[in-house]
Every structure is written in structure tokens, then in C-alpha cells.
């Protein structure tokens, strides 16, 4: 690599020519019933602490995925909208740049990663995130016996002072990539990686996969004309696309 080439690479916005994989997710709001199975699955898979009623009332819960609930209209014409909100893994993430110790960055799979060991807890990333998907460990939460038996050994447990958020179940992605390497395959096949939330959705509202793979299910869903991105005008380039709910009258509402 000549110096000129290296310099050109370093001056390229985003650095990567192209990602190895570009993990993306679509969430069909027409299918979402707001059952919160995804929230529970995420909590189980990623060792999210149970903060308790007191802390929850202080708005200190750890939530990587939350179901946003919006009411529309007056009784008896009330409509309820659910918006499962998780880290959008923005390609131009506003949260990555302000971390003073580089604890969050964009990796070669298009994921916005959080490095727990490096985080010193300035919480700037959480302030900068427009989707408010980041959670901070205000205390060191512990699990009462025997709940610590259900912890996932593939995922670390975070101590106080560390920021965390949805990782698209990076541990499952990593296991799938390792398996693909062991099998002498060059790429992970579509369907081999499902994050906990996608896996547990009873209506299959969530689809996850590699958007670089034109044959993957998620690539087809991304082409759906109902698709929209939350807060698109902010130009964060999120990797999560929502599919508008289909109304009875045929007018879509986000």
C-alpha cells in the first residue's frame, strides 16, 4: 500500500470502501402487535439487568429495545401505534464521533459497536443519539439467586458507569461467521443469523439479514414501498427500516 493510497483511504468519508456485511433489519409495523416478546428475548439474551420497580420509576431502566406506544384520536376512535425502537446502527451515527475515548465506532460489518471495556461513562453518546436507544448503567445491577444461572455466557455483564445498547446480537453474528469460516464457506448464509428479538417475534414482523446479499429476505423487504426510516431528515442513515402500517382506508401512517 503506497503512502498516497493510504492517505486517500484515510481521507475517505467513512473509511470503508464497502462493508464486509451490512447487517440491516426491517420491522413491519402492520404485523407488530406490541406484545413485547422481542423486549423480553433481548433482555434474556444479552444479560440485561432487572433494575427493579424503584429504579424503573426513576427512569433508570436498561432497555436495548423498547416498544414506543403512541395514541391517536379520541375514544371510541382510538388507534394505537407501536414502534419497536432499537439502535438503528446508523451509518452516519451521531453517537460515535463525540466519544472521547473511542468506545463506540463503526465496524466493518456496518454495525455501531460499543466497547464496554473502554467506556468511561461520559454519556455524551446518549445525549447525541436522536433515537434515545442507549442505556447507562447507573449502578452495578446484580441478579438475585438463582437468576444468575440464566445469564448468557456469550455476553459480558456490564458494571456501573458503562454505556450499552443493542448490538444486533453481535455474539450470534460472530458465532455464525466463525461457523462459516470453519465450514470453508466465504459468507454467512441468509437465515443463519437471527438476533433474539427477530427470533422471538410471533408474527414475524422483524426480518434481519445482510443487505449486501441481494437474495436475502431483508434485501427484498428493504425494497418494499411501505418502507421508511425514523427521523430520516437527520441524515443519520439508519440500518433499520420500518414498514408502514396499512390502514383500512388504504392511507398509510407511520
Amino acid at each position, binding site marked *: 500500500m503506497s503512502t498516497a493510497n493510504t*492517505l486517500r*483511504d*484515510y481521507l*475517505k*468519508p*467513512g*473509511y470503508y470502501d464497502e462493508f464486509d456485511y451490512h447487517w440491516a433489519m426491517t420491522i413491519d409495523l402492520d404485523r407488530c402487535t406490541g406484545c413485547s416478546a422481542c423486549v423480553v428475548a433481548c433482555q434474556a439474551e444479552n444479560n440485561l439487568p432487572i433494575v427493579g420497580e424503584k429504579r424503573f420509576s426513576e427512569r433508570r431502566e436498561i432497555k436495548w429495545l423498547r416498544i414506543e406506544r403512541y395514541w391517536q384520536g379520541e375514544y371510541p376512535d382510538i388507534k394505537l401505534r407501536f414502534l419497536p425502537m432499537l439502535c438503528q446502527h446508523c451509518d452516519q451515527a451521531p453517537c*460515535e464521533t463525540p*466519544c472521547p475515548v473511542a468506545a463506540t465506532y463503526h465496524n466493518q460489518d456496518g454495525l455501531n459497536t460499543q466497547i464496554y471495556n473502554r467506556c468511561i461513562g461520559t454519556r455524551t453518546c446518549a445525549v447525541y443519539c436522536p433515537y434515545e436507544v442507549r442505556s447507562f448503567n447507573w449502578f452495578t445491577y446484580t441478579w438475585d439467586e438463582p437468576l444468575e444461572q440464566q445469564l448468557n455466557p456469550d455476553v459480558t455483564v456490564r458494571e456501573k458507569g458503562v454505556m450499552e445498547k443493542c448490538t444486533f446480537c453481535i455474539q450470534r453474528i460472530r458465532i455464525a461467521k466463525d461457523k462459516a469460516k470453519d465450514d470453508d464457506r466465504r459468507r454467512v448464509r441468509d437465515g443463519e443469523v437471527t438476533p433474539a428479538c427477530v427470533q422471538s417475534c410471533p408474527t414475524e414482523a422483524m426480518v434481519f439479514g445482510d443487505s449486501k446479499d441481494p437474495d436475502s429476505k431483508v434485501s427484498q423487504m428493504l425494497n418494499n414501498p411501505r418502507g421508511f426510516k425514523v427521523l430520516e431528515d437527520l441524515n443519520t442513515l439508519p440500518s433499520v427500516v420500518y414498514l408502514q402500517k396499512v390502514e383500512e382506508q388504504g392511507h398509510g401512517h407511520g
Partner: protein
Amino acid sequence: MASNILGLFRYEEDFIDAAERLKSAGYDELTLMSPIPLHDAEKVAGLGKSSPVRRFSLAGALLGAFGGFALATFSATVFLLPTGGRSIITFPPFLVIAYEMTILLGVLFTLLGFHVVSGLPAWRDVPYVEDTNVDRFSVVVEVDEKSDPEAARRILDEGGADEVRDLGEY
């Protein structure tokens, strides 16, 4: 053997007149001390309009400018962690870092320059009288066998010195 003669003045003009007269009489080893900075006295002492300190400042500022940008660039290239869709070497933030380092090194080098140019801290014994830091202006003339101590004393006395003292050797 060298000796030092001290003349203490109460008024600024007398002080400067006497110093000028001593200088024109050929006494080169003059030390002029005052409790406040005096532009005229500095001129008599032969100090020009500028000072070598500014070269230290400039060196520090330049080093800081380049060093700051180099620090930011180097640290961004050790581990390539793109953030926020920006490039690895980004100019607006790195220029801010360079700006701060310019000032930091400029200040530190100016401090160094002050010590180097002024010769402080002074390690040897030098003539000094405490009154000179309160409300007296003092002229210390160093005389040896070649120069005339009596003439120096006379110039100081006639110039209006409050007190003329023999400080001995230093």
C-alpha cells in the same frame, strides 16, 4: 579588585540622568534597578525595542501547530476506528487540536525563553538592596582599577542621590 558603588535615588528623572551621565563617562558595568518597569531606563541600559523572547514564542507556536495536528493524525491512524461516517483524518477537529497545542507550546516556550533570556533564577550573588524594590531607584556601578571610583561617586552625588554606598566585591 572590582568594587560596587550603589546610588539610591528617590526620583525617576534624577535616576535616569545619573545613569546616562555615568554611561557617557565610560562606566559600562552599570546595573539599573527599579521597583517598576521604566521605558527610559531600559533604553539607557541598552535594551532595544524587541527581545529574543519572541523567537522562543514563535518556535513554540510553530512546533505546537504541527505537533498538535501530528498528534491527532497519528493517534487516529494507530487503530482505524471510523466514527459517524467521517474519514479517519478529519480536518475541522484536528485543526482545533492544532490550535490548542499552538497556544500550549507557545506559552511553555515563552516561559522557557523568559528564563533563558533574563538569566533568572540567578545562581550567583549579585548586588541588591531591599529599598530598590519598594520606592528607590538604584544605580550600581562596578568599578575596578582602571575606572575612577571617585568620579563615579561624584556623578551619583551631584545627580541627586539619596544615598551613595560602597557595596564591596561580588
